[in-house]
């Protein structure tokens, strides 16, 4: 567990360094990695697809501009999530006529806004989401358990290995195979790709 956390920081640290140096490709990777997860969290917070999409874009603009202030005291996603929640709270305050001036002229960044893609999950109908979930349910139990423990419970590979009594390498392979199966299904069903 401890080793995993160190690796976690190292990997995201490399992305952060690249983004901090103005590497847009690294920013795209960071965005690809976290945008849908953030969108889902914001959707839970706001209950509004439009607002969640808007806040996702604004958050990543803020990440791009403020990445040098990330000090590694929390996970990268936690830091991104805090930015998003602050923006969301500010949005609510603004709507109630109590703008507390937390934002820093994000709306001026029109070019950047247009360059940040929208989360793909917006375009997915609820029926398609249900189809994906049904497919996940139909996966062989070893794949279903591994991906569920990872995605639903946020367990590390080491923790999943302990729970399932399998080597960490097997857990890594099962999660990868589950994702491959799900992605293939989504492509066959024209849900993605």
């Amino acid at each position: 567990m401890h080793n995993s956390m160190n690796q976690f920081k190292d990997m995201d640290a490399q992305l952060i360094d690249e983004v901090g140096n103005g590497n847009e490709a690294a920013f795209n990777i960071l965005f690809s990695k976290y945008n849908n997860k953030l969108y889902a969290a914001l959707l839970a917070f706001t209950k509004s697809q439009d607002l969640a999409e808007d806040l996702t874009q604004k958050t990543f603009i803020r990440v791009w501009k403020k990445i040098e202030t990330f000090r590694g005291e929390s996970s990268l996603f936690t830091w991104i999530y805090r930015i998003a929640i602050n923006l969301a709270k500010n949005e609510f305050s603004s709507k109630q006529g109590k703008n507390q001036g937390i934002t820093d002229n994000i709306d001026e960044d029109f070019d950047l806004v247009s360059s940040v893609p929208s989360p793909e999950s917006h375009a997915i109908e609820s029926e398609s989401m249900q189809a994906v979930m049904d497919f996940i349910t139909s996966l062989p139990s070893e794949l279903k358990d591994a991906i569920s423990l990872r995605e639903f419970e946020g367990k590390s590979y080491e923790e999943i290995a302990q729970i399932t009594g399998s080597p960490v390498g097997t857990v890594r392979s099962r999660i990868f195979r589950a994702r491959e199966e799900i992605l293939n299904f989504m492509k066959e069903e024209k849900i993605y790709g």
Partner: protein
Amino acid sequence: MDNKEKLSAFYDNELLEDAQGLIKAINDQEQLASDLRGYSLISSIMAQSRISESSKRSFKIFKSSFISHSFAAAAAVLVTLGFVTYFNPAQFDLDKESSKLLADAIASDEGQIRLNQEENLLVDHLFHIMDEKNLTSDMNPGWIPVGFSQNKERPAIFTNGTRRFVLHVENSELSLTKPMYWKNGNNLVYLYPTADGKTITVYGNIRPVDAEKIIFSLKR
């Protein structure tokens, strides 16, 4: 391990090697970049599915609670905790006054608090307590506010005629590590975790400081 399997481990922050080569490969190979977006999408779908199930569950709890309790009591708990974002008054066929009360609650600051799994358990716990048949606690605190007395039929309930609070203890799924309370208007929800895994709940029209004194008087 090929690049695709590395990508999956990288996505989970579990890649046990230098990610620099993989980052370059993602930049160079559209297929890898597409798969990374796909992994993120799978996470999103699974998360949204869970949120949806969670909301449905709480909605069901709320609805059943509404049937067996007054709207005002249920709304008071929800507003106190801030769980009002996903309720649609129209679904309850409420009268105008009740609908307005809930609409006001939804528009409130408290109404914007995010619902998450822990909060869901909290709602569950409180609705369980709101159902008076579950109030089986018979605790005798060493101190209660002046003017209050214990209900003889329901010893968990204390009242002074105009104000009322509930003192209840039971095993709980809540994983509290420290006392927590929420207050909105006259309503207080105070939760105190005990060393043996139980949760003491004080809920009702009472000040936080009084709730604390009652709980500490139990510990003696």
